[in-house]
């Protein structure tokens, strides 16, 4: 088309030029010759026209050639270059063009080649670094989850970034969660004091003892190196001193009681005896009377001493140093330790079910030292290990064929301070002896109590299969989102930076004004757009009234089930704690809030955080739809509906829906909480909602 226009323009231009030439020639010829010229022109018109056409045709051909060879390829090169920089980096310019263009195309291709190679290298390096990082994280998460020591990692402003199952078990789920504050567990001033000492360089790690509920905790802090700006975070490891403290308190108490009662008894005995001795003239009956007093008091003292004698489990020292171990494993470990030593050691196969409560490292070291000593000083070259169980102890024997050990030598060895200390700590004894098989040295080791001594779980809090969700125990992105719960204006904060508590309630009916009550609350947290299925809240509530059959049909909660459960006044503070510093989200949340608002005063709590209603959010995102029930939204957004009509089930469903709605709101340009709430106020169905929703 452009070519045709160009040719037409060229033809017009030539005609105008010929016309100007004609006019010039015509006016330059004498008047008298005009006739002659006209005749000549008329006679030669054919030639003139053919010549003109040849001229135009030639020029048109030239133009066409120019177009096809240069202009069109140039335009294609421009388009292709754009393609190379955007959609398809592997694309290259066509070099089958005239030499001038071919050189240009080759130059562009070369630039593209270099750029692509560079980008690919960078991308490969980035991918590798990411993979390594992900692997590190997974390794760390797996390690953390398996550790039996409670560990929390938090930012310097006390926000939890990472925790393990042991920490959750120790501190309960209401206090341990990603993005939550540590100050529910650890006193704020104690925490800042520890940080001050660390940053002042006075200590690399610190510990503080604090009480949490009925537990006594020792919290050790270790700093994580950060940027030049300061600490990157803090690792908190916790130790439950409760058990140890209880044992030592019991010892203290019995010692105190023993001292006091001993004083009394000794005073009575002394008074009686001194009286008898000071008054030798006392008659026989009087002496008998005082003698009986002495006997009674002595019996009282005897009984008291029996009570104060430590029970076998108390005879053990600091319980944190002991662990349950299978006797067979212990023997195998000793055998391994002695491999390659001067004495050949073999362990007898042991029954699988003999558990010991020992400081295994200490046992291994003690037995290894013993065997080495036997080898060096008593010519023992082959030793056999065996274990024999008695009631509450098991005897671990080191046996060898040959002469028994002299008791004095044995006494000397076991009298060494380290060995003596080890024996004392285990409430243990050792001695040498001999039987048909030869000589032996026996060490008594405490057997494990029937109940495993792993820390008791307070309550079963996690749904089955929580281990599969292990990665939710950490979220390193929180290192960046430090200000999640800082005091910044709620409304100005980006949706993705906020933490949410999505909740639902079941009630006895629809009218709180007419005495209907909450009978169940379920909730789940969302942090960094992730539904934290391991951080849920579920509580039945005693409504202190009858549950109507009509509502039972919906939620299936009977009067039987809520009997003995806490009342709403006890539950709300707990729930407030769970929902602290988060935006409350619910489907038709105004309904639930009406029930809650009526109880705020009697429960002494206030829910002041912003609210979001998934029904309103759906109306903003899909104004063209009329149905905004939870099922309808879930279906639209491709969330499968399971476990409905339990408070937690509905909360989880609402949470899944909510996370998807967040993305859709952002796609509509609504990026902050304030923008969403403004849009919600304008949404058509907002008028039907209660006033609390504008909060």
């Amino acid at each position, binding site marked *: 088309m452009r070519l045709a226009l160009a040719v037409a323009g060229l033809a017009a231009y030539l005609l105008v030029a010929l016309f100007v030439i004609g006019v010039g020639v015509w006016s330059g010829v004498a008047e008298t010759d005009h006739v002659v010229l006209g005749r000549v022109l008329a006679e030669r018109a054919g030639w003139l026209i053919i010549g003109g056409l040849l001229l135009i045709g030639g020029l048109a051909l030239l133009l066409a050639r120019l177009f096809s060879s240069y202009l069109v390829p140039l335009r294609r090169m421009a388009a292709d270059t754009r393609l190379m920089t955007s959609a398809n980096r592997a694309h290259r310019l066509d070099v089958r063009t005239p030499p001038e263009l071919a050189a240009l195309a080759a130059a562009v291709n070369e630039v593209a080649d270099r750029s692509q190679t560079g980008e690919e290298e960078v991308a490969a390096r980035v991918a590798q670094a990411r993979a390594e990082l992900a692997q590190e994280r997974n390794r760390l998460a797996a390690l953390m989850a398996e550790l039996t020591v409670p560990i929390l990692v938090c930012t310097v402003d006390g926000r939890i970034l990472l925790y393990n199952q042991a920490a959750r078990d120790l501190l309960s789920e209401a206090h341990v969660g990603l993005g939550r504050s540590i100050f529910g567990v650890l006193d704020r001033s104690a925490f800042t004091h520890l940080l001050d000492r660390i940053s002042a360089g006075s200590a690399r790690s610190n510990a503080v003892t604090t009480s949490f509920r009925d537990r006594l905790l020792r919290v050790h802090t270790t700093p994580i190196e950060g940027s030049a700006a300061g600490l990157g975070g803090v690792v908190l490891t916790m130790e439950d001193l409760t058990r140890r403290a209880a044992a030592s308190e019991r010892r203290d108490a019995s010692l105190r009681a023993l001292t006091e009662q001993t004083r009394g008894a000794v005073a009575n005995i002394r008074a009686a005896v001194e009286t008898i001795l000071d008054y030798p003239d006392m008659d026989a009956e009087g002496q008998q009377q005082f003698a009986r007093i002495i006997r009674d008091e002595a019996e009282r003292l005897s009984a008291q001493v029996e009570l104060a004698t*430590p029970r076998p489990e108390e005879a053990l020292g600091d319980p944190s140093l002991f662990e349950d171990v299978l006797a067979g494993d212990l023997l195998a470990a000793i055998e391994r330790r002695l491999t390659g030593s001067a004495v050949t050691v073999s362990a007898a196969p042991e029954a699988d079910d003999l558990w010991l409560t020992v400081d295994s490292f200490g046992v291994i070291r003690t037995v290894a030292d013993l065997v080495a000593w036997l080898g060096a000083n008593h010519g023992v070259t082959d030793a056999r290990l065996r274990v024999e169980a008695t009631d509450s102890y098991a005897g671990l024997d080191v046996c060898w064929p040959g002469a028994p050990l002299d008791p004095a030598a044995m006494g000397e060895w076991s009298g060494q301070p380290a060995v003596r200390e080890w024996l004392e700590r285990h409430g243990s004894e050792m001695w040498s002896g001999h039987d048909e098989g030869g000589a032996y040295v026996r060490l008594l080791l405490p057997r494990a109590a029937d109940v495993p001594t792993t820390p008791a779980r307070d309550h079963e809090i996690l749904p089955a299969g929580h281990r599969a969700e292990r990665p939710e125990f950490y979220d390193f992105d929180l290192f960046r989102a430090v200000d999640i719960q800082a005091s910044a204006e709620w409304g100005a904060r980006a949706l993705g930076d906020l933490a949410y508590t999505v909740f639902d309630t079941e009630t006895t009916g629809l009218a709180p004004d007419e005495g209907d009550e909450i009978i169940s609350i379920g909730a789940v947290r969302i942090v960094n757009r992730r539904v934290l299925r391991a951080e849920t809240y579920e509580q039945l509530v005693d409504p202190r009234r009858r549950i109507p059959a009509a509502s039972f049909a919906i939620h299936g909660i009977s009067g039987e089930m809520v009997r003995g459960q806490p009342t709403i006044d006890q539950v709300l503070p707990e729930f407030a704690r769970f929902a602290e510093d988060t935006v409350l989200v619910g489907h038709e949340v105004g309904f639930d809030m009406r029930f809650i608002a009526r109880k705020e005063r009697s429960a002494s709590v206030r829910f002041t955080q912003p609210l979001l209603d998934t029904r309103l959010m759906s109306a903003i995102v899909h104004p063209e739809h009329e149905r905004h029930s939870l099922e309808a939204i879930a279906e639209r957004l491709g969330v499968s509906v399971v476990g409905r009509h339990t408070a937690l089930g509905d909360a989880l469903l609402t949470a899944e829906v909510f996370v998807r709605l967040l993305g859709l709101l952002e796609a509509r340009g609504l990026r902050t909480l304030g923008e969403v709430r403004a849009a919600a106020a304008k949404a058509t169905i907002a008028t039907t909602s209660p006033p609390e929703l504008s909060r």
Partner: protein
Amino acid sequence: MTHKVLIVDDEPNIVTSLQFLMTRRGYLTQVARDGEEALAAVESFRPDLLLLDVNMPKVDGYEVVQRLRDAGWRDLRIIMLTAKGRETEVAKGMALGADLYVTKPFSTRELVDQVAALLGSP
């Protein structure tokens, strides 16, 4: 035949009571004040029964039992007396060859009965 009882303890107060009780019960008694003395006294006095304290200077009660049993004193009855009452200590004493392990404080009447039972005399 009169049975002989050797009393081994380094605490004179308890020795006084024990010696009185054993003598009144009709046994011949002798006293040793530590482990070494006890081992020598067993050879010379040849007792039928030992009332043996565990905690003594030089050679302790455990070692005395062990040495006596190792030396072939099979028929000698041995009652160990101790202020330590831990289960492991009882186990050790019995394993080394004591016939009875009695923790202090004890009832004198019961002790006298136990001695009589071990000696097989009424």
